[in-house]
């Protein structure tokens, strides 16, 4: 949108003051994804399993001061989640195929990925989605949230959700790892989404484990991303029907 149009839009908004609103929201309807045949042959597809390890002692989780919103405070004590470690395994690490798929096109799921604002935190904190797949952002709290995405390659948006149950659907059009989300009302709320053109990604869970299935045979660059520790990459070759195990070790 050029500057002139933006100015016109701003002036029009200035003159259109709504009264007594707050309970309506228009969701941007997801554009229908073009039908693409799945290029993965299930007869030869393999997989990738592994775990994320953390060396060193992470900083202790801090109690978040949530007094600025009585509702959030009533939800109980919340702690920072920058480092979620279970038996030496690091959770919330986004693992994905960064390179090696060539020009393959993959079907885009029509089922929405849900990002919930619940208990004044985002759930999930780290997740993946395919470009073109709908993202449903839900407010499950009885307080106001704004969902503010700060992408570099996609369109930035900032939507207010004043009431419990409000949903906003958004579609990322371009692959981008990672797109941060924040709530400017509650400055402790952060989430990240990895937007990809393929379905080969996972987020490390309990014990730092992850699992990427139905990966076609080939040689790939696998990247692991953590919100504080950055990225690591590995090359891996998957043979027909082979499930390979790899591990990443982040050091503090």
């Amino acid at each position, binding site marked *: 949108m050029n500057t002139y149009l933006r100015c016109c839009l*701003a002036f029009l908004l200035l003159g259109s003051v709504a009264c007594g609103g707050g309970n309506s929201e228009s969701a941007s309807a997801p554009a229908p994804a073009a039908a693409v045949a799945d290029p993965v042959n299930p007869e030869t597809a393999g997989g990738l399993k592994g775990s994320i390890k953390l060396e060193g002692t992470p900083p202790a989780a801090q109690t978040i001061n949530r007094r600025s919103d009585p509702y959030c405070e009533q939800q109980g004590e919340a702690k920072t989640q920058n480092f979620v470690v279970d038996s030496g395994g690091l959770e919330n690490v986004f693992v994905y195929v960064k390179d090696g798929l060539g020009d393959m096109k993959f079907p885009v799921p029509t089922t929405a990925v849900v990002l919930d604002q619940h208990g004044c935190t985002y759930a999930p904190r780290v997740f993946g989605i395919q470009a073109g797949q709908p993202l449903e952002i839900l407010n499950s709290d009885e307080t106001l949230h704004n969902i503010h995405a700060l992408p570099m390659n996609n369109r930035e948006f900032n939507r207010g959700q004043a009431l419990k149950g409000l949903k906003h659907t958004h579609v990322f059009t371009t692959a981008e790892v990672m797109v941060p989300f924040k709530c*400017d009302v509650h400055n402790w709320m952060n989430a990240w989404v990895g937007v990809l053109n393929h379905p080969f990604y996972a987020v490390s869970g309990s014990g730092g484990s992850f699992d990427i299935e139905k990966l076609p045979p080939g040689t790939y660059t696998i990247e692991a991303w953590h919100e504080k520790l950055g990225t690591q990459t590995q090359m891996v070759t998957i043979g027909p029907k082979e499930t390979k195990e790899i591990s990443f070790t982040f050091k503090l």
Partner: protein
Amino acid sequence: MRLHLYAVLVALSTAVLIFAGGLVTSTGSGLSVPDWPTTYGWFMFTFPLENMVGGIRFEHTHRLIASTVGFLIVVLAVWLRLAEPRRWVRRLGYVALGAVITQGILGGITVLWFLPDPISIAHASLAQLVFCLTIAIALTTSAGWKRGYSARGPMPDDRILQQIASATTVLVYLQILVGATMRHTDAGLAIPDFPWAFGHLVPPTWDPKIAIHFAHRVGALIVTLFTLATTFHVFYHHRSRPELWRPSALLLTLLTLQITLGALTVLSQKHYIINSLHVVTGASVLATSLVLTLRTRRRSFDKLDGSQAQDPAYGMRPARGHA
């Protein structure tokens, strides 16, 4: 007199607005209300108080104060139109009105466009000009200004003082622009120590954020030198003129406070109250320097006033028929 008192009230409320704006930036709440001019779909003044939570408290309060100040300036402009005989003072009212409307639109645009640095910096910079305009109106509607500060003889026409005071005011404004750029580009802690820069007099490494932060520190030094030159000149040459040494003394005091707050902003890791006080004290330094500058040039305004300056009822009569 009532018009002057009202103008002072408007200037004070503008200072409060600048502090509230500083709180919005300092707490990172600028986008906590994503829509504008509505607030989460509500008309601004009907937004429920119980929804004033988190960052909304700062952003929505800033909008409410801004609307109030805008209304006060509308009244001021109308009042000047009706009661002020000097055309140039009435024009100050119109300019203030235009500036505050522009300021409101800039504030809205910066929210709708996700706080682009140039718009946010323009919003912060225009706020200072609105404040200066209200200060200038308050000053020029005062009884002392109208009398030409003649109780102790004619106001001196000290060219040197006029020049250094004007230069100080311009430099303070430029310093505020650099400060606004530093705030809105998140460079406030680019140099994390004070008074040193990474333990050195000059930063050993450079990037754009370090450069803008260091420019603000150098700017503070330059402003200090000019302020000292201005105030010492006043104390040495015009000690008998309270209309000059009082703002000079205040300027020096405010500058000392401002430098202290600047240091504390860094040392406290940008505590939002200290940071916001730094913003509003900077505005106060600018306003005080402007008052001093205008007073040093008081005699040149006689030409603008024309024959009205000789009128015993100067400033007392309705404007109609005086244009």
